[in-house]
Structures are given as structure tokens and as C-alpha cells.
């Protein structure tokens, strides 16, 4: 179990020096972590919802964040995306601090996410949902698109092509002109992932991607998560209750309970960690005669 207590100044100028036992897959060793979170914490009134949350994620790592209900997992995602402003600690994204940035700016710096309860733009087509995310990278200014200059059409064409390409990850090109709200549940979940990918993130945060999926869909999702990581060369961090998925796909796992990290390690280390077992199943009482 790794435990870093070195809190670094919020401006993030200090270079990263990995402690010996930080969790990063061997292929990412020696590279600057894409996500370097130090002593992150937030209070809601008197409640310490998250405290001393420290984690590093390698540039192509698939990391898991697990914990019992109410442990603060989604709060961590909200902190990472700056939806909540942290009370304490710092987040370095690819070496740059995200403090003081707006949610949209943090997205452009390279964090994209999906939601526990799906939040697509239901009244827009599947294609437009993806293209909304792509807004960042299509170069064509307001005047050009208002006057419908050739660059506008070129940009539009390029963005459509790119969106269809992204949709093909999950074989959803044929649904491009369906309204997102009319898609079946599983397809909506997949579309959320594609929409997030369209923003060209360095880190993709998935909030319970397998929720409501059956076992065979979950297996397919595991494959997709790996292939997304390989294709895009990005880091993925996921919150999930489905332990088969977490243990099957994640390289490093962090366990949260009552807002605090209680364990970090490889799937095998986590499976056998007593604190984790206790958090999930409760303390084993000695049988009284």
C-alpha cells in the first residue's frame, strides 16, 4: 500500500518525484503522470466529504476507484473536473495545476467524464452530441460560420467525419441521426463515452460505466475500455461497483471509504486487503459460544 504524505505547493512548479511505491504500470514508469493529485479534500459544511486524497495516474493507465456507497467516489470526480472547488490539496493535470480554472477550461486541459446517471443532450442527434464535445478542436470562427464561408463547410465536414469515426468505436454510425434520448440504455452509456472522447481528453473519467449492464455487455465494455486506452493512448479512471470489471480491467485500484483512501494497489493486493474487506463486509465478529 502506497502512502504519500508530501503535499506540494499549489502552483505545481515543483517537479514530480515519484516515491518508490507509487502505483503506476511498468510501461508508464519514468513518465510524468497524467494525473497527480495531492492531499485533495473538500468539506461540505462540517462534513469532510473527501480528505487527504492522493493518487497518481500514469499516462496510459487504467485506474479504478472503488468504495462502498457514499464513500465519496463521485465527489472525487467532481473535484477532478473542478465542478467542486477543493477545500484542500492540488490537482496536477499533465503537470499543470487545475486550480482556478473553469469547468470548461479543465475539460480543454484534458479531463473528460461520463455520468453515473446518464446526461446526454436528449433532444440532439447522436452525431450532434459527439460534435458538441468536439467544439474545442474545430477551427472555424463565428464570422466564418455566420457568413457560411467555405471554411465553415470544411470544418463542418471534418467534424462530421471525425464524429462518425468516433461512433464507429462502438459501431454506432448507423444511429448517427437518431435523437440521443431515443437510444436504448446501453447505447446511451456508450454514446456518453464517445462524447467524452470527442473532447480529446488525456484522462477519461467513467462514472459507473457498467451500471445496468448485463454480464455479457460488461465483458464487451471491458474490451472497449482496453481498446480505447490502446487506440487513444490515454489514461482512464473509472468508478465501478462491478468487481469483475474492476478486477479485470484496472491496473491500479484505489479504495475510498468515508472520504478517505483506505487502500491503493494492484487488483490482487486489493482483493486481499483486510481494510478493504472490512469496509465492504464489515468487521468479522468472533463467534461467541
Amino acid at each position, binding site marked *: 500500500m502506497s502512502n504519500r504524505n508530501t503535499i506540494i505547493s499549489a502552483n505545481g512548479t515543483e517537479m514530480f518525484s515519484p516515491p518508490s511505491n507509487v502505483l503506476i504500470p511498468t510501461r508508464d514508469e519514468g513518465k510524468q503522470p497524467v494525473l497527480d493529485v495531492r492531499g485533495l479534500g473538500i468539506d461540505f459544511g462540517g462534513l469532510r466529504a473527501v480528505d487527504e486524497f492522493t493518487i497518481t495516474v500514469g499516462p496510459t493507465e487504467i485506474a479504478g476507484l472503488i468504495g462502498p456507497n457514499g464513500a465519496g467516489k463521485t465527489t472525487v470526480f467532481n473535484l477532478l473536473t473542478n465542478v467542486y472547488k477543493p477545500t484542500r490539496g492540488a490537482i496536477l493535470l499533465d503537470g499543470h495545476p487545475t486550480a482556478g480554472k473553469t469547468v470548461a477550461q479543465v475539460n480543454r486541459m484534458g479531463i473528460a467524464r461520463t455520468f453515473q446517471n446518464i446526461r446526454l443532450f436528449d433532444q*440532439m442527434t447522436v452525431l450532434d452530441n459527439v460534435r*458538441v464535445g468536439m*467544439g474545442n478542436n474545430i477551427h472555424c470562427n463565428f464570422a466564418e460560420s455566420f457568413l457560411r464561408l467555405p471554411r465553415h463547410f470544411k470544418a463542418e465536414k471534418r467534424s462530421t467525419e471525425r464524429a462518425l469515426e468516433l461512433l464507429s468505436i462502438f459501431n454506432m454510425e448507423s444511429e448517427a441521426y437518431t435523437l440521443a434520448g431515443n437510444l436504448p440504455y446501453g447505447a446511451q452509456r456508450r454514446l456518453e463515452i464517445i462524447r467524452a472522447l470527442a473532447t480529446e481528453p488525456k484522462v477519461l473519467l467513467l462514472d459507473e460505466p457498467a451500471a445496468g449492464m448485463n454480464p455479457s455487455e460488461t465483458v464487451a465494455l471491458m474490451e472497449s475500455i482496453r481498446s480505447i486506452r490502446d487506440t487513444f493512448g490515454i489514461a482512464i479512471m473509472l468508478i465501478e461497483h462491478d468487481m469483475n470489471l474492476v478486477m479485470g480491467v484496472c491496473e491500479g485500484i484505489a479504495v475510498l471509504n468515508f472520504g478517505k483512501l483506505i487502500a491503493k494497489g494492484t487488483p490482487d493486493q486489493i482483493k486481499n486487503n483486510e481494510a478493504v474487506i472490512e469496509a465492504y463486509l464489515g468487521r468479522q465478529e468472533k463467534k461467541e459460544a
Partner: protein
Amino acid sequence: MTLLIETLIQGISLGSIYALIALGYTMVYGIAKMLNFAHGDVIMVGAYTIYTTISLAHFPGWLGVLTSVVFCSVLGIVIEFLAYKPLRGAPSLNVLITAIGISYLLQNLALLIFGGQQEDVPNTGINVPSLDLGFVVVEGKVIFTIVLTVVLMIALTLFINKTKMGKAMRAVSEDKDAARLMGINVNRTISLTFAIGSALAAFASLCYGMNYTYIKPTTGSMPGIKAFTAAVFGGIGSIPGAMLGGFGIGILEKLSQAYITPIFGEITDVIVFGVLIIMLVVRPTGLLGKKIREKV
């Protein structure tokens, strides 16, 4: 029969003006989830800008109209920035009261600057010849109003459906937080919405001035309220709904003036607002309004 057709054409013309204003209400509601009751007074500001630039400063007509459109857009952005943006996230009642306050502020500023007397609307130099269809003659200003409205509606629809900014606007109107997380600058999108809504109001003031020939500081309030009724009638938040509602209310008003007023007296406003009440009772989401889904 001739009376009916004439009435319908006048109704469409009046409805065009309502529709242009209603679009401002509905776009702002769709995106900022607030009722901008100062929107009606932007029409008054637009009309006074045309009056100031053309009658007082002797600008050419087209330049006066252009100035009015630009001035109203900027005014929309400024109002949003100073009055509504600080209240983002405040209870909607606070925003509503602020909007009413801005409405009175604009009216009283106009009263202070121009005084309470009526002013004649200047000739903008826009002259469309009347069209003689044989059984009815359609006045040039009516043709101009209808054509301008249709062109603006097509442009707006294309803008919203085909451009990146339009997509951002639709995304923000559906889910502000998700839009933010997709890298959309929500504040800029809201500003843009106010700018477009106010520009449409400026065009509405141009058409209104051509049809009603004089202005005073309270000029904007009645068409504002009627257009708001139209927006609710069509389904607030829905752009086609605002267009449909605008034409519907305009035609209803003219029909009532032509057929009911001679018998029962001037009760047109009673009928228009009566329709609003019935609509709110029978179908609170309006003709094309989105169904509100309760999240469980």
C-alpha cells in the same frame, strides 16, 4: 370573405412582430431558465435608437436600423452581465424581480432622456410597394414585416441547427453542467443568446414602428407581454413554438378586432389573455413545449 383575408394578412403581420419578440423570450428561457421581463423594453430602446439616429442625428435609414440592432445586442449582453449573471444559481424569483426592475429602469431612463410625450417614428427609407392581389391590397409595410420575419427565422433556425455555436446553445439549454464538462463556455453562450434575442427585438421594433408610427417610453410593454403570451402559448423554450405562438396570437388579435369588437366592444386583450389562461390550465407546456419529466 375579403375582410377575412385582409384580417388574416394583418394578423400574420402583427404575429410576425410578436414572433420576433417571443423568440427572444423563449431563447433566453431555454438557455438561462429565466423570464426576461425586460425584453419588451428592449423593443422600446430599439425604437428610440432608430428615432435618435434618424430623426435627431440624420443618419441614413439603413445606418439607423443597423445602429439600433447593434445597440440592442450590446444592451442585451450588458443587462445579462450586470443584472442576471451575478444571480446565476439564485432562486428564480430573485431573477424575475430583477428582470422587472430592469424593465422599469429602461422605461424610466427613456422617460428621463426623451420625456413622456409621443415621438413620431422616422421614415427609415424602407419602401416596399403594395401588392394588389385583385380582391385585396397588401400594404408594403405588411409585406416587409412578414418577409423580414421569415428570413430572420430561417437564419436563426440554420444558426441553431447547423453551427457550432448553435449546437453549444442547444447543449447548454438541455444540461448546463454537462455542457460545461464538454468544454463549452456557458457564460459566453448565454451572452450570445441575449445578444441574438435583443437583435431580434430591434428588428421587431423596426416593424412595430412602421406599423404603429409613434413611440413613447412604455411602447415596449404591451407587445412584450403579448409576445410573452405567444411564447407560453407555443411552449416556452421551444423556438418553433415561439414562431407558431406569435402568429397564433397575432391572428387571434386581429380576428377578434375584426369580428368581435364590433359586437362586444374592445375586448381583444381579454380574449388574448383568456387564451393564455386556458392554455395554462389545459396544456401548461404550450403547443410545442417539452414534456417535463420528473426524475425519480
